[in-house]
C-alpha cells in the first residue's frame, strides 16, 4: 500500500476536494477523510455506544463517498450534510440489525485535566452518565442531540441530513433535552444515595 500524503492545502474547499476525488485523486480523498472522519466517528459512536461499530460506520460512509464522488452535487447539500446523512443511514441499519448497544469504554481525558483526582473522577462519572442517558434516548431524539448539541451542526444541516423540517428538529431537540434532564436527575439521585450510604459505612 502507498503512503498517504496529505497535500499542503488546508484551506481547500470540500467541493474542490470532491471534484479531485471524482477525478481519481487519491490525496484529495485522503484529505477529505482526515478532515471529516472524526465527526462521523463521534456521531456513530454516540449513536451506537460501540467504538467497533463506529469504525465500521466510518469505513462504510467513506466507501460510499468514494463511489458517489462523481455524482455528488455540492449545490444540493454541503458535504457534512451528505456525510451525516449517510452516517445516520448506516448507523440505523446497524442498530436495526444488531438491536443491542455495547457499553462505551473510552478515556475522556478528564482525569488528566482535572485539578484533583476526586473532581476528575466525579467529572468522568458525570460524563459517563450523560453518555448513558444519551444512549437510552429513542434514536430520533438521540440523533438530534448528537448532531446539534454535541457536533455543533446547524438545525438546517441536521434537518437536511435527517430529511425532516427544521421545526421537527427544534421540537425533537426540546423533547430530547427534557428527557435527558429527567434521566440525569434520576441518575444523580441514585448516585447521591449510593455515596451517602458509602460515607455512612466508612
Amino acid at each position, binding site marked *: *500500500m*502507498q503512503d*498517504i500524503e496529505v497535500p499542503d492545502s488546508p484551506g481547500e474547499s470540500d467541493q474542490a476536494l470532491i471534484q479531485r476525488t471524482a477525478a*481519481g485523486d*487519491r490525496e484529495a*480523498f*485522503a484529505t477529505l*477523510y*482526515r478532515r471529516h*472522519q*472524526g465527526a*462521523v*466517528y*463521534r456521531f456513530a*459512536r454516540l449513536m451506537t455506544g460501540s467504538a467497533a461499530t*463506529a*469504525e465500521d460506520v*466510518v*469505513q462504510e460512509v*467513506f*466507501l460510499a463517498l*468514494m*463511489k458517489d464522488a462523481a455524482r455528488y452535487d455540492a449545490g444540493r447539500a454541503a458535504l457534512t450534510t451528505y456525510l451525516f446523512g449517510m452516517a445516520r443511514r448506516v448507523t440505523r441499519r446497524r442498530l436495526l440489525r444488531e438491536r443491542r448497544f455495547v457499553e462505551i469504554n*473510552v478515556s*475522556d*481525558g*478528564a482525569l488528566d485535566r482535572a485539578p484533583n483526582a476526586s473532581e476528575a473522577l466525579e*467529572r468522568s462519572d*458525570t*460524563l459517563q452518565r*450523560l*453518555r448513558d442517558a444519551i444512549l437510552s434516548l429513542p434514536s430520533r431524539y438521540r440523533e438530534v442531540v448528537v448532531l446539534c*448539541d*454535541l457536533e*455543533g451542526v446547524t438545525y438546517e444541516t441536521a434537518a437536511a441530513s435527517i430529511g425532516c423540517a427544521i421545526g421537527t428538529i427544534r421540537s425533537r431537540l426540546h423533547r430530547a*433535552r427534557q428527557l*435527558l*434532564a429527567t434521566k*440525569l*436527575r434520576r441518575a444523580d439521585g441514585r448516585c447521591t444515595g449510593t455515596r451517602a450510604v458509602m460515607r455512612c459505612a466508612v
Partner: protein
Amino acid sequence: MTNPDQNLSALFDALRHAESDDSAPPHVESAVMKAWDASHAPAVSSVRVTAASWVASLAAAAVLAIGLTVVGGRLRSAAVVTPSLVAEAPTVILVGEPVRDGEQIRLVRMRMPASALHTLGVTSTAALQGDVDIDVIVGEDGVARALSLNP
C-alpha cells in the same frame, strides 16, 4: 436552584470537549485507502482484461465463422450428394439382443473402409468400395445392439 438547561449545556460542553479529539483509529484509514487503491488500480487491469476479452472474442468469432463456413460448405455438398444416397437405403444389421424397453443406449458413429467390414464378417457390403459410415447402437452393457451401414 440552577437552571436545568444551563446544567445540560455545561454537560454538553464538557462532553464535547472530552471527545473533541476522538477519531477513528489509524487502521480504519488504512482500510479505507486500501479500498480506494483496490477500486482504482484494478480499473486499469480491468481495461486490459476487457481489451484481452475483445481480442479473444474476435478470435473466437473468426474461428467460428471459418468453422461455420467449412461446415456449411460440407453440408451443402452433402445436400447435393444426398439424393443419390437416399436411393440406397442403409443396411441395418441387428447384432446381439434387441434394445430393451427403456434401456439407455448410445449411438457411436464411425467411418471405416468397406474392406475392413468384409474382414470382420459383414458380407452384405462386400460389393462396396471406399469408406462406409457406420452407426452403432450400443446398449447399457456396452454390447452393440445394431449396426446401420450407410455406404
